[in-house]
C-alpha cells in the first residue's frame, strides 16, 4: 500500500533518466495563482492513489491562466472514487501520436518480476490486454542475473517493428526495471508511455508501489505504508509510529470504523484484538456471521513484548462507544503469559464497563489464565475467560449473546 503519487513517481523517473512531460505540482488551490508556465495548453491532473482517474473526471485541460484557476479549483475539491485529491500536477499537454503500456509487476506464478509491454496503452489497457493478446508481451526476469538492454530490445521487437522506437522504448523499460529494483517496488508502471508527434517517447503517467516491508529502507521517500490519500486515524498512526521503531513481534491495526463515526453510533461495534494473522481473519468471519460489527482489525503475533500488546489493547479498548472487547488467540506458540500481561495492564488502566471476552490458548496458556484471573477481580466489567476447550465459532456466538445481554441490560437501566 506504499504507493507513490504520480508527481513523486515522475520525480524518480526524471532523476533516473526516463523522460516525462514538463510539469509543476501544487499542493492546494491557493498555489494555483503562482503557477508560471510557458505551456500553450495544460493538462491538470488530480493526485490520488487510485486507478481510473481519467474516467472518473480527474483530468482536465486549460489553455490560459484564468481557466487553470477555474478548472484547478474544481478538480482539487473533487472526490475521486472516495478519495480526496492531495494536490494537482499541471503539465504541458502532449500531442500524442500513439500510446503504449510498460510495466513491471511481481508475478506469483513466476516468483519473479515480469516485464509487460503493450502497443495498446491508455485508459482501456485492461480490456485491450484481454482481447488483443497479440499486442502484449511478458518477460520474467531473474533478479540475480538482472536484465540487459539488448534482451529488452528483443522483447519489445516482438510487437513493435519500428527500429528507432524499439531502441527508445527499450531504454525506458530498462530504466524502469532499474528503478523497480532500486526502490524495492512491487509495481512500476507507465500508462501511457507515449510517442509524440515529434517522435519523442514520454512517460505521461507514472505509478510506483513500494513493498511495505521495504519502506524503512527508503527514508528519502518520506513514506508510510498506508493509503496516503485517505485520512489516517490516530490509532493507525500510533500503531505505525510504534511498530516502525520496535520490530519485536508484529502489530497491525486498521481502524475500519473511524473514531468520529464510533462517537456518533451506539450499541453497534466491538473492539477486536486477535493473535495470529489466520486467526484474525477466521475470527472476524465468525464474529460477522454471529451478527456482530467490528470497529477495528488487528493482529499481534510473532512474540511481541507485553508492552506492544499493552499498547495495541489500550488503543482498542479506548475506542468510543464500543459494546465489548474480544481477545482471541490461535493455538499460539508465543509465550501467552507475556501476552496476558500486556492485556492486563491495558484493562487495568482503561477499566472498561462493557464485557471483556478472552480466549487464550497455546503456549503457557494456563499461566496466562491464572494471571488474568488474579487481576480480573478489580475490573468493573464481567470477564468471560476461555481456553483451548472452545473453538472460534463457539466464541463468536457466545460473544454475540454476551453483547446482546449487555446492551439489553444497559437499555433497561
Amino acid at each position, binding site marked *: 500500500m506504499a504507493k507513490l503519487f504520480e508527481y513523486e513517481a515522475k520525480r524518480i523517473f526524471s532523476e533516473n533518466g526516463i523522460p516525462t512531460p514538463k510539469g509543476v505540482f501544487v499542493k492546494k488551490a491557493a498555489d494555483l495563482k503562482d503557477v508560471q508556465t510557458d505551456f500553450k495548453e495544460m493538462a491538470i491532473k488530480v493526485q490520488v492513489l487510485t486507478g481510473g482517474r481519467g474516467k472518473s473526471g480527474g483530468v482536465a485541460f486549460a489553455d490560459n491562466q484564468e481557466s487553470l484557476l477555474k478548472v484547478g479549483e474544481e478538480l482539487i475539491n473533487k472526490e475521486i472514487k472516495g478519495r480526496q485529491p492531495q494536490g494537482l500536477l499541471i503539465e504541458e499537454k502532449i500531442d500524442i501520436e500513439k500510446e503504449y503500456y510498460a510495466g513491471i509487476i511481481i508475478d506469483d506464478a513466476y516468483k519473479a518480476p515480469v516485464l509487460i509491454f503493450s502497443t495498446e496503452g491508455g485508459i482501456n489497457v485492461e480490456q485491450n490486454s484481454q482481447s488483443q493478446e497479440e499486442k502484449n508481451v511478458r518477460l520474467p526476469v531473474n533478479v540475480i542475473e538482472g536484465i540487459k538492454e539488448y534482451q529488452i530490445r528483443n522483447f519489445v521487437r516482438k510487437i513493435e517493428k519500428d527500429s528507432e522506437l524499439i531502441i527508445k522504448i527499450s531504454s525506458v523499460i530498462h530504466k524502469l526495471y532499474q528503478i523497480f529494483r532500486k526502490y524495492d517496488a512491487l509495481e512500476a508502471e507507465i500508462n501511457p508511455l507515449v510517442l509524440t508527434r515529434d517522435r519523442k517517447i514520454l512517460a505521461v503517467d507514472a505509478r510506483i508501489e513500494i513493498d511495505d516491508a521495504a519502506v524503512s529502507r527508503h527514508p528519502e521517500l518520506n513514506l508510510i505504508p498506508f493509503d496516503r490519500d485517505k485520512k489516517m486515524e*490516530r*490509532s493507525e*498512526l*500510533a500503531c505505525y*509510529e*510504534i511498530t516502525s*521503531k*520496535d520490530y519485536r513481534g508484529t502489530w497491525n491495526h486498521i481502524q475500519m470504523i473511524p473514531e468520529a463515526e464510533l462517537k456518533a453510533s451506539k450499541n453497534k461495534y466491538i473492539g477486536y484484538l486477535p493473535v495470529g494473522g489466520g486467526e484474525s481473519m477466521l475470527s472476524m468471519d465468525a464474529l460477522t456471521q454471529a451478527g456482530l460489527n467490528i470497529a477495528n482489525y488487528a493482529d499481534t503475533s510473532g512474540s511481541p*513484548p*507485553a*508492552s*506492544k500488546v*499493552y*499498547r495495541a489493547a*489500550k*488503543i482498542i479498548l*479506548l475506542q468510543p462507544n464500543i459494546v465489548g472487547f474480544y481477545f482471541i488467540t490461535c493455538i499460539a506458540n508465543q509465550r501467552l503469559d*507475556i501476552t496476558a*500481561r*500486556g492485556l*492486563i*495492564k491495558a484493562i487495568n*488502566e482503561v477499566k472498561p464497563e462493557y464485557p471483556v471476552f478472552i480466549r487464550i490458548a497455546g503456549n503457557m496458556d494456563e499461566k496466562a489464565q491464572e*494471571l488474568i484471573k*488474579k*487481576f480480573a477481580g478489580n475490573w468493573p466489567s464481567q470477564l468471560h475467560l476461555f481456553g483451548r476447550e472452545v473453538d472460534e465459532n463457539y466464541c463468536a456466538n457466545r460473544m454475540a449473546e454476551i453483547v446482546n445481554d449487555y446492551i439489553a441490560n444497559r437499555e433497561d437501566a
Partner: protein
Amino acid sequence: MKLEFDTMTGTIVLDLKACKTCESKACVKACEQDIFKMENEIPSIEGKSIAKKKCVECLACEQECFLLGNKGLATCFPIPGYEIEVNN
C-alpha cells in the same frame, strides 16, 4: 527517593520508600532478566544502560509488585496521540 530507568520503548519507576518496607521484593524475583539486585534492602540496578539493554518489557515486575509487593513500581509506555489517555 526514586529509581528510574528507561527501557527500549518506555520507563520503569520504583518508589524506593515503598520498596524499603516491602517484604516480598516481588519485582526482583519476577524479573527473568535479572535486572534488579538487592542493595541495602532495596532493589537496585547495575547501571541504566545495562538495564535498558536487558529489559524485555514483559511487565512482570509491575504486576507482581501490585499483587505481592508494596505497589511501588510503575511502568509507562507512551502511545503517540494518546498522551492524555495514557497519563490518566
